[in-house]
């Protein structure tokens, strides 16, 4: 007799309406057009910057060089190097150091070209072959090309959205069509891994780049400035700069000071190594008031390069903002590693049965899900990143209170975050204390028991086991389901079986012993997929009075029933 079982599932949407497709198309068209426009702008700029590398070289003479004020508070300084050159018997004059804008908020950066091109010196400039009056002294790499991936994301979202809206569903138009589930395995696994890998690499690149600018460079400056030499300096000007941004007005204290080293006078406006030189009005105003023009002060000068100096080489809380991109970097590295790992896991195990057979007969020393050092490091990093980020805002709130202008909304908003931060610090100490606990050793035989067979677990401890006054070991099976809600990933667990192996307060039983348990055969074996799993584990709980308990979870594998038991010959 033959059996035909109809699926009856026709979950496929019958077809999207033209109006719906039109709305989706308009929505994604905005992304596509905006992304395309910015992509074209960036590529065009990169091409023009690259073209300079192919302009012909011409000898030139520097007439004058220095720094001029631009009148723009955001980038108030610009290098000015006037040079002349001759082409086809005619003299030309230019003042461009590089193609495009070279203005800067840093006086030091604006001054550097004039140091390289003193008046009267000979140099080589590059002349635009189409416009002989257009010449530059230096070429720049087209770094701007590196950011082209940002608008390309919009292009991908827009283009992909429009494609998805109009894509013909396989089999659409045929009524009561069954949607293929297995096709998702063909299409989905590779695609999701590629998306995860792309996102991981993107987060790693962005987090890494920001970490360099916000953490590594400032930290390197702080460390190197320790050996810099103190010099007397004079404040030349102290200006409160302000400019409009998307979030309102930004303020920066621009303190221009001069100092003399070996008879040469240098000018700089570097106050510190903080990457965040701009901020609120009150803070910037306080700095300007503190450094009045004409006042004497001290600065710290690099003995190897007197052009480098700083007014304040001390650590300040603003530097902690450099910890923020670390979270992106860690997330990116984690996502990248996960995508590689899932790729490896998706490769079918050739000798799965052989592997099972091997550990089925053996004893197995179980390893806890995390060692004490890993727990301390993990908790420490989490607490450091959390509190590092929170401390920036706490500092801002404290500054407001200190100057008599408290930001109450910010202060109240911060309270729960600060409490979590304190709990995390407490967690670090708890984990450190727990690391001094006796270390359990748990051995099971067989190494991977089958359903319906007996499991023997042997336990012992290293360390002062007498501190444990109660011991409980439980064999537990639970479902583990991972799902996305919005942009967050959640994992739910639900135990479906819990078998006590030991529950004792006897000192000699706690120290060392063994227990047997029969695993029911009418339950589920271990199962591990990308998002769903059935996990078997032994949980050991050793209670210690007035001290963190010993608490370890040891994952183990429970195999399906043996073939011989299911299909006796």
């Amino acid at each position, binding site marked *: 007799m033959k059996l035909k079982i109809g699926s009856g599932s026709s979950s496929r949407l019958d077809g999207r309406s033209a109006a719906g497709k039109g709305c989706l198309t308009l929505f994604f068209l905005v992304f596509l057009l905006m992304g395309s426009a910015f992509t074209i702008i960036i590529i065009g700029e990169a091409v023009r910057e690259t073209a300079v590398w192919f302009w012909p070289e011409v000898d030139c003479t520097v007439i004058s060089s220095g720094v001029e004020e631009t009148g723009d508070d955001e980038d108030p300084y610009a290098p000015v190097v006037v040079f002349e050159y001759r082409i086809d018997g005619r003299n030309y004059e230019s003042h461009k150091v590089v193609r495009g804008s070279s203005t800067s908020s840093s006086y030091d950066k604006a001054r550097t070209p004039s140091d390289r091109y003193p008046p009267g010196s000979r140099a080589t400039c590059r002349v635009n072959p189409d416009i002989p009056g257009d010449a530059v002294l230096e070429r720049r790499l087209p770094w701007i090309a590196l950011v082209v991936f940002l608008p390309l994301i919009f292009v991908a979202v827009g283009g992909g959205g429009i494609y998805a809206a109009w894509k013909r569903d*396989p089999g659409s138009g045929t009524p009561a069509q069954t949607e293929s*589930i297995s096709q998702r395995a063909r299409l989905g696994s590779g695609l999701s891994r590629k998306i995860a890998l792309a996102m991981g690499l993107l987060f790693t690149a962005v987090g890494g780049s920001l970490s360099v600018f916000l953490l590594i460079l400032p930290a390197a400056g702080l460390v190197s400035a320790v050996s810099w030499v103190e010099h007397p300096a004079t404040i030349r000007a102290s200006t409160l700069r302000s400019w409009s941004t998307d979030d309102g007005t930004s303020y920066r204290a621009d303190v221009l000071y001069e100092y003399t080293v070996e008879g040469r006078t240098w000018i700089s406006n570097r106050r510190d190594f903080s990457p965040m030189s701009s901020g609120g009005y009150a803070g910037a105003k306080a700095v300007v008031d503190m450094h009045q023009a004409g006042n004497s002060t001290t600065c710290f000068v690099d003995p190897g390069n007197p052009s480098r100096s700083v007014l304040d080489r001390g650590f300040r809380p603003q530097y902690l903002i450099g910890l923020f991109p670390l979270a992106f970097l860690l997330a990116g590295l984690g996502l990248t590693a996960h995508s590689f790992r899932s790729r490896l896991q998706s490769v079918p195990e050739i000798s799965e*049965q052989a592997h099972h057979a091997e550990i089925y007969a053996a004893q197995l020393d179980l390893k806890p899900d995390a060692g004490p050092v890993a727990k301390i490091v993990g908790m420490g990093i989490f607490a450091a990143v959390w509190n590092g980020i929170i401390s920036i805002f706490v500092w801002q709130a404290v500054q407001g209170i200190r100057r008599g202008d408290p930001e109450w909304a910010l202060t109240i908003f911060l309270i729960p975050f600060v409490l979590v931060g304190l709990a995390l610090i407490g967690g670090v100490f708890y984990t450190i204390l727990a690391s001094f606990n006796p270390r359990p050793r748990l051995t099971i035989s067989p190494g991977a028991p089958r359903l319906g067979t007996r499991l023997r677990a042997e336990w012992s401890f290293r360390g002062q086991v007498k501190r444990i006054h109660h011991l409980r070991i439980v064999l537990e099976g639970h*479902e583990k389901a991972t799902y996305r809600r919005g942009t967050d990933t959640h994992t739910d667990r639900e135990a479906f*079986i819990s078998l006590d192996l030991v529950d004792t307060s006897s000192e000699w039983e706690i120290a060392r012993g*063994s227990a047997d348990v029969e695993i029911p055969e*009418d339950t*589920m074996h271990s*199962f591990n997929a990308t998002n769903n799993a059935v996990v078997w584990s032994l949980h050991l709980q050793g209670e210690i009075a007035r001290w963190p308990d010993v608490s370890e979870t040891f994952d183990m594998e429970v195999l*399906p029933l043996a073939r011989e038991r299911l299909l006796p010959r």
Partner: protein
Amino acid sequence: MTLRIDITHDRQWHLPGENVSGRAVWNLDAAPEAVELRLFWHTSGKGTQDVEIVKDLRIDNPAASGERDFSFSLPLGPYSFSGSLITLAWALELVALPGGDTERVQLVVAPVPAEIRLESLGRGPAGHSIHIGPSKR
């Protein structure tokens, strides 16, 4: 257009490790690029869906109508089961490519003639024993 999977056992339930065999039949409007018969499991429930094709049989450039006998050996696991969070089901699918027209047959792969029900298992089921004492080494 017809896609059909005929299974040569008169039951939906199969033991792990057993063979599942039958005949795949197709009668399409035009010759497809390929037809594929896939033995797979998939999850449903709270977690994001996992799907894994365990065995497949691909017939390239077939005629618009045809049939092919098949025999797949089922693995020892995973079992069909249903819990509080996860349901795992087995199925056979016959898919015409590239259009994706599909016929599916549900299977139960378990040691008993029904999926394993995890929520029905209580704490400490009968049959387990505990021995406490020094290990015999």
